[in-house]
């Protein structure tokens, strides 16, 4: 039988003998000046549309919001080039008055649109006022909700007057993944209906302008501006690539193939197996972690999300029982092949959060006691991260770090140890009964749990879901996955699910402030099943104690150290109540090919930003890239 090794050997020999694919095929661009990135949006239906302020009209991450758009501030999900916070179009942080009803923004001067017009306060005022009088633009709603008026103090200073106090208003202009981008007044003021304007070709505020694009939406090519030094990134030097191509390489296996052929420099995401293949067969490929688990952990927290509106999940004992039935090691193996960064608490173990939250919580977690009704147990096992590492070491050898710090960074710290006994006791206390092999709810119904997953669209989450369902099934719960490919978002919105694998927790990653997701968890927003739940409290968890925390956060400054304390309070509450079962960080297998370019971000050497190519923040990557072989 043809063994896997021989097969790969054959493949290898083929690859060795294959024709040189130096040039991007058919492209007349000098490959050593061209950076080819994956656009995870895939093929853009409406390629000729660059008006990013209109919702869903065209592509966003075609390079458009990474390299053409700009706004006041950027928060880096990792360490940042020069600290987590970067003043982009603004020269300093937002300046609020003491009761947070006004925000002043000081603007950078000497920044020019790609058509040679200078960027000024007028553009800001125009952008805001356009959004105030036009509904249905991407940022119309938040502007209309918050802004009473905007004033131009002078060409480099604007003042926002807010309708009500809001200490987080600047978040609207702070790029995490994206934020509200500035419009070129001189272009849009000539336009009748902003919603119907395609903004083609786009006038750029970033270091690149449109060079060429496929009407079919499979590729977009951007060219470095000759006056790149009149853009905000110039502070960090000249962008390396002369050209950027954002392409749709197709499904994971094709991305692997393309990178093996050096026709795709930056892969946005892969299946773990695809990642391993590249790690094995593509010496020129690098990733966030030098070795295993390679992936970049996004500051989002995949979890088992309960529908708190369903009776069976309203008792925290049930939620806890289900948590104690999960063997996170198996989940990590099943979903990420171990390449997961697990988290027991309600924030992702990414960016600077280990420092802000995980270290402080560790103590508390180890001491945390859970009353099963019959006895008190200490469910937290701080060694699970290490256990995963040990489990993987035999097969992956020295790829697996051995010092605790690296292990914690790569695989996370502890988690809840599986405890069927305790789970049984908890369920029994909640009035559930086991008859024969199956569990029944207090109302006599069999205890069935459907785990909604997104199938092909999020393979890893789908795998996590199916293994968790299996673990519950083994215990006598009628659990199955429910593949809602393409419909998950909608069903999530209207609460048409038992549980699903997804995230209701997303953070700044670099900045400890939790309002980014927590504000929306306030019970005031919770609606009944059938009505659409506004993001992100998909679990529809209503908790007075949490509301208090949220209300206080709203009143304190973004950088107020009190924020961290409140964050910790939330984490403890979440641990006790288990409103969702946190699993791990959303690890994105962003892979970079160093055949043509070096200087990609990586945790060990330079974690200046995340390499995940659809993030607005990746504009900082461009100024760090250098050609591998000096241009001839």
């Amino acid at each position, binding site marked *: 039988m043809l063994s*896997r090794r021989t097969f790969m050997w054959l493949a290898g020999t083929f690859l060795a003998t294959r024709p040189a694919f130096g040039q991007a095929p058919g492209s007349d661009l000098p490959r050593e000046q061209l950076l080819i990135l994956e656009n995870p949006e895939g093929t853009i239906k409406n390629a000729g549309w660059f008006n990013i302020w209109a919702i869903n009209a065209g592509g966003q991450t075609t390079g458009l919001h990474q390299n053409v758009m700009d706004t006041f501030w950027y928060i880096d999900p990792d360490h940042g080039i020069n600290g987590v916070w970067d003043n982009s179009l603004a020269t300093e942080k937002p300046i609020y008055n003491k009761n947070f009803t006004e925000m002043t923004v000081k603007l950078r001067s000497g920044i020019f649109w790609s058509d040679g017009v200078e960027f000024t306060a007028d553009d800001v005022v125009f952008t805001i006022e356009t959004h105030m009088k036009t509904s249905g633009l991407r940022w119309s709603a938040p502007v209309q909700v918050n802004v009473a008026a905007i004033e131009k103090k002078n060409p480099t200073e604007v003042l926002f007057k807010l309708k009500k106090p809001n200490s987080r208003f600047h978040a609207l202009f702070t790029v995490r993944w994206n934020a509200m981008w500035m419009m070129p007044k001189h272009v849009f003021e000539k336009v009748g209906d902003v919603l119907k304007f395609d903004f083609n070709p786009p006038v750029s505020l970033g270091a690149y302008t449109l060079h060429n694009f496929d009407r079919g939406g499979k590729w977009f090519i951007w060219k470095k501006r000759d006056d790149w030094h009149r853009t905000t990134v110039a502070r960090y030097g000249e962008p390396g690539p002369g050209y950027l191509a954002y392409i749709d390489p197709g499904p994971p296996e094709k991305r*692997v193939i393309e990178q093996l052929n050096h026709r795709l420099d930056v892969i946005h995401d892969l299946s773990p197996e695809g990642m391993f293949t590249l790690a094995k067969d593509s010496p020129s490929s690098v990733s966030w972690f030098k070795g295993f688990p390679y992936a970049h952990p996004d500051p989002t927290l995949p979890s088992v999300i309960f529908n708190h509106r369903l009776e069976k999940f309203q008792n925290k004992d049930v939620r806890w029982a289900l948590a104690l039935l999960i063997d996170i090691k198996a989940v990590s193996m*099943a979903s990420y092949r171990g390449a997961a960064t697990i988290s027991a608490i309600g924030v992702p173990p990414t960016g600077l959060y280990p420092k802000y939250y995980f270290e402080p919580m560790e103590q508390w977690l180890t001491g945390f006691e859970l009353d099963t009704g019959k006895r008190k147990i200490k469910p937290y096992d701080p060694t699970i991260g290490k256990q995963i590492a040990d489990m993987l070491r035999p097969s992956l050898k020295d790829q697996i770090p051995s010092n605790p710090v690296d292990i914690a960074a790569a695989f996370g710290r502890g988690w809840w140890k599986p405890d069927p006994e305790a789970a049984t006791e908890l369920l029994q206390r909640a009035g559930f009964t086991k008859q024969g092999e199956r569990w029944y709810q207090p109302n006599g119904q069999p205890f069935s749990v459907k785990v909604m997953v997104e199938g092909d669209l999020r393979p890893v989450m789908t795998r996590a879901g199916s*293994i968790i369902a299996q673990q519950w*099934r083994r215990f006598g719960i009628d659990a*199955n996955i429910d593949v809602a490919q393409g419909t998950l978002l909608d069903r999530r919105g209207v609460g048409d699910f038992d549980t699903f694998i997804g995230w209701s927790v997303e953070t700044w990653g670099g900045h400890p402030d939790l309002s980014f997701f927590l504000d929306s968890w306030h019970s005031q927003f919770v609606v009944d099943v059938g009505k659409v739940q506004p993001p992100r409290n998909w679990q529809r968890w209503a908790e007075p104690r949490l509301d208090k925390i949220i209300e206080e956060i709203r009143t304190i400054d973004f950088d107020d150290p009190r924020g961290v304390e409140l964050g910790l309070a939330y984490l403890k509450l979440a641990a006790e109540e288990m409103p969702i079962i946190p699993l791990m960080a959303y690890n994105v297998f962003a892979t970079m090919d160093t055949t043509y370019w070096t200087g990609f971000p990586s945790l060990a050497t330079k974690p200046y930003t995340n390499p995940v190519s659809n993030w607005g923040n990746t504009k900082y990557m461009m100024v760090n890239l250098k050609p591998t072989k000096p241009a001839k």
Partner: protein
Amino acid sequence: MIAVFRDLFRYNGEFAIGFMIMMVILGVAATSFFSPYAPIDSYLVAMDAPPSAEYVFGTNSRGQDIFWQLTFALRNTLAFGFIVALISRILSLAIGLISGYAGGAVDRVLMSVNDTFIVIPLFPLLVLLYFVLRDDMTWFVLALVMAGLGWAYDARLIRSVMISLRTREFTNTSVFSGMSMPRIVTQEHLPYVLPIVFSTFMNNMNWSIGLEVTLAVLGFTDVDTPTIGGMIFWANQHSAMVSGIWWWYFFPTLFVTLTFIGLFLLSISMNEYIDPRSRLDRMGNS
């Protein structure tokens, strides 16, 4: 009957081969009843083990023994194809015969219905239905839906054969000889139509299973029920091809292909047996 079967087996190569293939397939499918594992459980055995003495067909990245997975997959896939084919045959035969003979208004009405079904691109329809029914779209429901959509093509085929038969002389002679239409249909013409029904039965199984595979691969079916398509779906989820787990594709593909070849061989040998002409040759003018 037994004798016919014995003769078929002994004297018709196609039948013999086809029959043996199907026996193997069914045998494999049947062993699913003795599987040590539940079909949808995963991470039970070592991952990515190539075929070996221990795992005949190897194991996949979900820690499942591909052989046992395959047994379930074959069982479900066969059952699926069979149900679709059976129901749709009944529909198409009935409609084809009726409209082929009745002609006129009946024919037009039936054929408009028919053409509508032919014309609507099924694939988007199935995808849409999947979105509407979601996890109610079990493989059985899917089977019913596809049976309901899969008869039209062959109904038209049968009808056109009917029309050409009707224009043949012997129909008229039998008409004049006072045979009733039903009798003409069943006695004079069914022999010509049956081979078509048989071969289309197989083609239809082919069609339905192929479509099921496709839908499954694209994730538009209930992936909890292992089918051939489902196996490939999971293989894709794990980029099995680029990571060299070729056996995860190879064996499902091999067996589904064998299945079809087997069915096909059976169908053609049946045709030969049923076709009045070849029977004539067989018996000579003695």
